């Protein structure tokens, strides 16, 4: 049976740029495809919504297998952004989501600034989109494949290219934790006009097969996710919130339980997105929502909002 969220007496609502969502919990990009498969396990209209798999301009085959390696309390992935391309996505996936009134944040990824611009153009005047997440934690082919988000200038360029076309929909920039100073990167994309930040994407990692002594993943390195990285995510959210008291933060990174969710909210997150935990428990987003509501209820705290930023003083 399909699980639903239950907030009990607690006000779990999330103010998403003026839209009042019943829950702060979203699925994380790349961990929920476009929602269809997960709808077998939970009512996606009862959670905050779905952040779709980062879509690119063209169809993309992704990397060769192995694409995955399990690590202690985490996993490495090197999917290589396999996907059908933006046109197919809009016609099929987005319409499937909007028909069902599932709040949708569309994640986009480009190989170049130009591609980000073209992707944004395709998303103009789409009232069914709740927000756009700009995944700048991907390689920039024009800059020695260095990740956009690892440099304040390239990060800004990618975001500006999107903002140029998108005026009436909130923009979130998704940042990489693999930087010396995430506050600097956050500042640069905020200047470039994003309305919010998604913190954090995966950490760059590697696993080596000790039978062959070669890297496990076909691409060599991969993105580390799961509970293992939670302390890094909490730290990044806390640092960025301390520097920017107003910016909207969609927190992700190792979120597995309601207690984890409360750590993120207290650190400064406005909303949450659940990734790897879905692989462990396909109904995790609903469970996490319910665990948060229950924990707050037990503490006689009547709204989640009252916990936000509590770790700052």
């Amino acid at each position, binding site marked *: 049976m399909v699980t639903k969220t239950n907030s009990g007496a607690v006000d779990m609502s999330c103010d998403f740029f003026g839209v009042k969502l019943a829950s702060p919990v979203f699925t994380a990009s790349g961990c929920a495809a476009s929602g269809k498969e997960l709808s077998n396990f939970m009512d996606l209209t009862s959670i905050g919504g779905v952040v779709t798999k980062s879509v690119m301009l063209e169809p993309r085959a992704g990397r060769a297998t192995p694409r995955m390696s399990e690590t202690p309390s985490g996993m490495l992935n090197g999917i290589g952004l396999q996907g059908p391309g933006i046109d197919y996505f809009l016609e099929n996936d987005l319409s499937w989501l909007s028909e069902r009134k599932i709040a949708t944040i569309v994640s986009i990824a480009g190989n170049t600034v130009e591609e980000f611009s073209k992707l944004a153009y395709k998303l103009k005047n789409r009232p069914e989109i709740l927000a756009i997440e700009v995944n700048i934690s991907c390689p920039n082919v024009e800059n020695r494949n260095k990740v956009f988000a690892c440099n304040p200038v390239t990060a800004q360029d990618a975001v500006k290219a999107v903002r140029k076309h998108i005026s009436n929909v909130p923009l979130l920039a998704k940042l990489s934790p693999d930087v010396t100073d995430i506050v600097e990167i956050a500042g640069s994309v905020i200047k470039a006009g994003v309305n919010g930040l998604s913190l954090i994407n995966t950490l760059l990692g590697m696993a080596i097969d000790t039978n062959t002594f070669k890297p496990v993943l076909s691409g060599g390195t991969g993105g580390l996710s799961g509970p293992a990285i939670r302390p890094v995510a909490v730290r990044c959210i806390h640092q960025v919130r301390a520097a920017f008291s107003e910016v909207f933060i969609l927190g992700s990174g190792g979120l597995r339980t309601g207690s984890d969710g409360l750590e993120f909210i207290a650190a400064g997150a406005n909303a949450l997105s659940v990734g790897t935990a879905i692989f462990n428990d*396909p109904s995790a987003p609903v469970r996490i929502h319910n665990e948060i509501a229950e924990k707050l209820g037990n503490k006689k705290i009547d709204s989640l909002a009252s916990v936000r930023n509590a770790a700052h003083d």
Partner: protein
Amino acid sequence: MPIQHESSVISNSRAGAYHLISLTAGDIPKSYKPGQFVTLSIDGLASSLILRRSFSIYQAQDRGVYGGSIEIVVAAHGEGTKWITQLRRNDSVNIVGPLGKPFPIPKDPVSCILIGGGYGSAPLFRLAEALKNRGCRVDFILGAQNSEKLFGLLEARRLGHNVVITTADGSAGQTGFVTDPLPELIEKTSSQVIYSCGPMPMLSAITEIAKANKIYSFTAVEEAMACGIGVCMTCVLPVIGEDGVTRMLRSCVDGPIFNGEKVRWSDVGTVPSETFGSGNH
């Protein structure tokens, strides 16, 4: 439609090199079809293994003393399966299923050969029943490294017209591989379809033989999976579509059963240059 169920262990017994584990399964058996699989999560919060483990459904019963129940056959491989094989009666474990596409059943009562490598025989017995209900003749080839790793011999004998056994070390049946007796058996039984489950090289070799004999080969592949439900894209392999285009398909939802002829066996582990989305199609 797959269901997530908080299951409890009914029994866990040894079967040669494997563990035969019976689990309460709620409504999972209701929609189960032969060839589908389940995933188990490993322990709770204290576990460092966050990914679920996949197992073919060997038996499924939709009502009984325990309500719905299933049986799986588990080989202790690494930490996760080690944990699973140590489960004891009444331990609880979270299961999701039935997952994946089942074996297609022919419309006509044609003869079929079912080939299992090691624990790969697990999903074949319920398939055999379905085929026999369709009036098909069923023959088995069961192969393994050694006799310990053969699974389901008696059941194969009960369900199969003939049962050929092969082991690499000769500890049971004829010494060699499942593919050795296959050509002759195809001829003898004039079978129209081969169903197989086991290691990739076995599935590939079987498919070659099927092609040579112009008959069908349906294979159950085993790719490493992170989610098992189609959302992560880790379990892909190159498969040729109706339109002749190669795509990286998810073995958890588009499979695990594939038409062997459509799988690009020699290219598994690569993205062939003309694959859809590779930039060169």
